[in-house]
């Protein structure tokens, strides 16, 4: 496949991620911060985000397994996750966090457990979609092309 086709795939995949609400404008903001002096900035931030995600989801899981559950502790983790997902433009993850926090406030264990599941699901979807996007990015860069960005 030539550069043009890789670029088209990249553009289409990124567009569909926006259409389906996986990503929002903040992801474009991150792309604006990438240039020759920091050519892998987006991948670096997202990699940090993946590590954060796994850490925080695990913390939430453990907190929900305590007896009794300390909902403020759960909420603290969700609040952090809401923050970092917002910072990278992970819109669907962030939205689940918002709902999750409401259940924490209400001390609703069942609601929290459902949100945790949703969060794991959304994170997993986002991760595989982004990995696909970055794979295309690497193909383009290897072929000497530039990454198409959405304006």
């Amino acid at each position, binding site marked *: 496949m030539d550069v043009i086709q890789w670029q088209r795939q990249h553009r289409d995949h990124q567009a569909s991620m926006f259409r389906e609400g996986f990503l929002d404008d903040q992801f474009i903001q991150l792309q604006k911060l990438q240039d020759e002096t920091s050519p892998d900035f987006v991948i670096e931030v997202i990699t940090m985000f993946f590590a954060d995600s796994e850490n925080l989801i695990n913390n939430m899981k453990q907190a929900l397994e305590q007896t009794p559950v300390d909902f403020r502790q759960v909420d603290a983790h969700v609040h*952090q996750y809401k923050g970092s997902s917002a910072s990278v433009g992970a819109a669907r993850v962030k939205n689940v966090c918002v709902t999750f926090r409401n259940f924490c406030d209400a001390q609703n264990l069942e609601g929290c457990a459902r949100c945790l599941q949703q969060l794991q699901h959304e994170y997993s979807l986002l991760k595989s979609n982004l990995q696909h996007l970055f794979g295309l990015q690497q193909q383009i860069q290897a072929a000497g092309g530039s990454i198409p960005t959405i304006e």
Partner: protein
Amino acid sequence: MAAAGDVLRQILPEDGAAGELHVLAVGDSHVDRKVIERLLKISSCKVTVVESETRALQFLGLDGENCSIDFDSLKVNLIMTDYSMPGMTGYELLKKIKQESSLFREIPVVIMSSENILTRIASCLEEGAEDFLLKPVKLSDVKRLTDFMRDEGMKGEKICPKRRRSYDCTPSLSTAFSLISHQS
């Protein structure tokens, strides 16, 4: 309250080129620290990033171990801090800095928060925050802030910081702000 420009004009950081802003960014999120650092570097600032208010105070030399502070030890032109942090919050750091009976009091402090809470914004501004940014922080927010500080440094004019709005304003919010501005 001294304008940001006065701080820039009078005191340059020890190891900064003339006119280079040195910003201290404080935040407990790994991801956020990386993003704010990049935002500031792209805006031509020298950046120091720390993970907590305690570390921020240590960096500034305000952690109780230094009793005498002189011009030379004023290392930063601007502090940007998260509001919500475990341990000491950004609001508490703001208060601590504004209570200093030294030049540290005049370092502009900008609060960043993901929550658009009117009373929170009001208390931060009343406590002397230079600005309140809603997260996620964008490049345009940082550019506006740094441009303002550089312009003020050159002109030496005082502009009421409370008139600048960097968050989504509902009519009720802006009404509250004009009330606060008129009180000061």
